[in-house]
């Protein structure tokens, strides 16, 4: 499906002539929110965590299927250049870390949280020189040992912002224009998931119970 087909399918479902109108600007807004929402779902929603058991029902890395769905957003590992203080900025399109390795044998660079920094830095069993690790900060990764030089990052990047571009016809109606439109990067299967989420938002916005319920049914019972 291209962006126009997604837009038309949504219009068809909400029966815009009877129940409301989905303007291109609204569509462009909600389809990207739906994309973010679905990405959040695949990466593991912490709202689903229970005390002492921090696992979401669906989580990135759970199985091949989920990784396959995210595959459009997993670029080849990038080489991070680490400065003298051990810092390396995030890639510009960085969203979430997948794996961090270093050296010819791609040994891991473990992620640790700030409150464990002291024990890792002073470890007798696994000193940083033997077991490098990294932390995350606002502007990027902090590596130890600081002279690690380079590391290899596999990560999830942000999806491109989808855009339904149009030109106006003689009646001032927006007509789809593929030039300037930005197509969805998600796989075909996942585009439907995006539409369901988008429909849910439209349903809430227009107070269309039928649309809302329809999207909920698809969400819980499948397509």
């Amino acid at each position, binding site marked *: 499906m291209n962006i126009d087909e997604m837009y038309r399918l949504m219009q068809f479902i909400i029966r815009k002539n009877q129940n409301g109108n989905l303007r291109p600007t609204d569509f462009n807004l909600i389809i990207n929110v739906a994309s973010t929402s679905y990405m959040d779902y695949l990466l593991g929603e912490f709202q689903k965590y229970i005390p002492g058991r*921090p696992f979401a029902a669906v989580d990135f890395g759970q199985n091949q299927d989920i990784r396959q769905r995210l595959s459009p957003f997993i670029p080849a590992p990038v080489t991070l250049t680490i400065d003298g203080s051990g810092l390396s900025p995030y890639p510009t399109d960085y969203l979430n870390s997948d794996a961090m*390795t270093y050296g010819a044998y791609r040994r891991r660079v473990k992620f640790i949280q700030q409150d464990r920094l002291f024990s890792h830095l002073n470890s007798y*069993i*696994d000193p940083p020189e*033997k*077991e490098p690790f990294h932390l995350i900060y606002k502007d990027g990764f902090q590596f130890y040992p600081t002279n690690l030089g380079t590391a290899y990052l596999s990560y999830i990047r942000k999806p491109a912002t989808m855009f339904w571009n149009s030109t106006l016809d003689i009646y001032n109606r927006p007509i789809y224009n593929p030039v300037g439109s930005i197509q969805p990067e998600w796989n075909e299967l996942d585009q439907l998931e995006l539409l369901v989420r988008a429909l849910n938002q439209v349903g809430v916005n227009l107070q269309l119970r039928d649309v809302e319920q329809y999207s909920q049914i698809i969400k819980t019972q499948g397509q």
Partner: protein
Amino acid sequence: MATRGAFIESVLMEVYGAKQTDDAEITYNLCNLYLQEGIGVAAQADYKGAIQLDGVGYVNNGFYSTFSGLSITQDATDNLCYSFTLPEIPVGISTNMGIAEVRFKSDGFTSLPAIPLSVNQWGFFDSMRPIPNKILMLPEGKVVRMKTVLILTDFTATVKMISGGDVTNLNSELNVPPDFLPVVRQYMVEKLLAERSVPTDSVSDGTDNNLKQL
């Protein structure tokens, strides 16, 4: 026979049920520590088994390794003459069964084995006249001290001792008889599973939460 690294990997697969992910807290270095302990436990089990079955305490030859080229220095401690450092502290089986033999080498010449003494024998021998051409040795932790009228600094020591091999090299052969590997494995898995089953304090709240709270 497996290398230390391969054995540790197989233990980790047992503990994790799969290959480790990059989140794993248990490292190869930690496992290598437990492996050392496990080798000692296995050697101890062999010794006890031998007493039960044969009535004589011994440790199977398969546990022994030979380390050579250990440099000797003069030693003024406790009025002893020479000393060298072992690659690791020997196991504590019997009086000094951890070390089977120490010889000295120089220019192709190899000495007869040194005569081992226990700590409480040392004082007795220290007050005796030196025995010509004999070397007395006293293993003490990671150090072996020797007393002799010979000049030993031109020699290097060769030691046969109970050891799992080179503890610093995970690619080195794991020197444990195969029928005792399950003893080592069981020990390690027990320790590692215990570590994995303890809830960790993942709340950064300034409180050292105890097990009941976690």
